[in-house]
């Protein structure tokens, strides 16, 4: 059976699989939201979604438009002030996983969502931290979801918004990475992607794990869940080409895009 899927769907599925066995996840809108909901329907049935806007245990009846969407509130288990959310849930140590976006990520796993260029004379002004800096320091682990290019995967970020201290896995449209021996290391490559593609989209000589894996393609039941239940309008999983996401909302806009990227569809592996 051959099922086509988009790079975004590959990213969603790969991210969802990272959540197996986790209980609490700080969620951004966009791809992480679909990934978290996919995990809840599949490999992490007890996963609770937490939003920095103050929501714990959301069960949105529609795909949220932002991390402060009214649909996240209605029917959730708890809504608190942001002070309580950051203090008691995040800083108090209750968050197993946080998802962050990145405009730039460097060789050591540091995240930039603040500026391209000099802070005081920016070439591109990005959104900034939002809650990302404290998520990166207080969640037990952090995953990053981002689109990979030589401009976004850089040897050294222009600005460290969020240090990569508890960075676990980076999910891109090309593969999966972990920090090993202090350096970003390619551990899995998505179906149909070559090692050359990956190096071409990386701004430094890339370290590759000796046991480099191939990411299993999205399974039919994963694609069905995404397409029929989680994002039936295909708002995010097809059209969204820039992962519009982070624990902090939308940190990950591509700094230099003028128009959508138009990622290619790939055949199933």
């Amino acid at each position: 059976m051959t099922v086509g899927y988009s790079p975004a769907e590959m990213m969603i599925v790969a991210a969802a699989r990272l959540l197996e066995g986790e209980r609490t996840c700080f969620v951004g809108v966009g791809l992480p939201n679909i990934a978290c909901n996919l995990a809840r329907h599949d490999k992490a049935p007890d996963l609770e979604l937490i939003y920095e806007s103050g929501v714990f245990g959301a069960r949105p009846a529609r795909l949220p438009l932002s991390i402060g969407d009214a649909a996240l509130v209605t029917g959730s288990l708890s809504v608190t002030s942001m002070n309580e959310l950051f203090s008691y849930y995040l800083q108090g140590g209750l968050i197993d996983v946080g998802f962050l976006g990145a405009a730039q990520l460097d060789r050591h796993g540091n995240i930039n969502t603040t500026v391209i260029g000099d802070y005081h004379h920016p070439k591109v002004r990005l959104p900034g931290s939002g809650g990302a800096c404290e998520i990166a320091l207080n969640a037990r682990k952090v995953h990053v979801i981002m689109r990979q290019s030589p401009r976004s995967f850089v040897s050294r970020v222009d600005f460290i918004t969020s240090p990569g201290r508890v960075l676990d896995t980076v999910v891109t449209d090309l593969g999966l990475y972990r920090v090993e021996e202090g350096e970003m290391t390619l551990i899995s490559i998505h179906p149909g992607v070559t090692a050359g593609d990956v190096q071409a989209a990386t701004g430094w000589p890339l370290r590759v794990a000796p046991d480099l894996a191939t990411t299993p393609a999205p399974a039919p039941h994963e694609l069905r869940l995404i397409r029929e239940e989680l994002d039936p309008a295909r708002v995010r999983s097809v059209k969204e080409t820039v992962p519009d996401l982070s624990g902090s909302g939308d940190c990950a806009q591509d700094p230099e895009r003028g128009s959508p990227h138009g990622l290619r569809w790939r055949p199933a592996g």
Partner: protein
Amino acid sequence: MPDKRASMHDAVADLVRDGETVAIEGFTHLISFAAGHEIIRQRKRHLTLCRLTPDLIYDQMVAAGVADGLVFSWLGNPGVGSLHAIRRRLEGGNPLQIEEYSHFGMVGRYTAGAAGLPFYPLRSYQGSDLPAVNPKIVPIQSPYGDETVYAVPPLHPDVAIVHVQRADASGNAQIWGLLGCQREAAFAADRVIVVAEELVEEAVIRADPNRTVIPHAIVDAVVIEPRGCHPSYAQGYYDRDNRFYLDWEAISRDPEQLDAWLGEWVYGVASRQEYAEKLGAERWDELTPGPAPAAPVDYGSYQ
């Protein structure tokens, strides 16, 4: 309790002064666009605008020339893209003074302001470049052991403007859904304007005191302004108008389009009521949610 009701025009005219620090708070939810537009209409100048997420309203206010400075933690069009008017100022030659934190840092600043504390300690910023570009973010050592955390200073806006679902005439105000940091911003501020979706009798407030976020004791004016949050939303009253958030991407990219938009939707209307009518009944119908009543609660009568 004194009746503090005022029109938006009078509240802004009396309480928002050129050169001051103003916080229109509300995290995605309950953003008082109505107050922001009135500030634009009255051509206030040299304001320092504080908000975690400047959102479209500060993009509009910056574009209209009311602001000299911005204190914030996340600068974007939530779920959509950029705030291009602000970006143009920051990336171009026309300076806008910025003071930048993380969300928790901003929340901490309001909290310290509300609590009369000289600083707010938090676990953030370690290893980040933010303290290097904002000297107000400083390390502080714990008096117990040698652990170091970070501190942010209190923020005391001259004026906080908070939209709520319901308030009585003296300013006792209730919010449900996202609470953001409105309570903290209001208590931290020197003056407070409460803008309410609905005016209710004092008895309604007293029938659920746990929902009260702001007490009349800190309120200077109460403006009854139904639909005052559009294109933001009021839980249970109307939804975010996402079409407008999407439209803003193109409008704000182009200074001419932006000026035309301000001309038509801000300068061109006298009041929020006119704005809401101009938007049209059909749009409001689309934004109206179905019912989802809260589970009942009984406080008990103790005589």
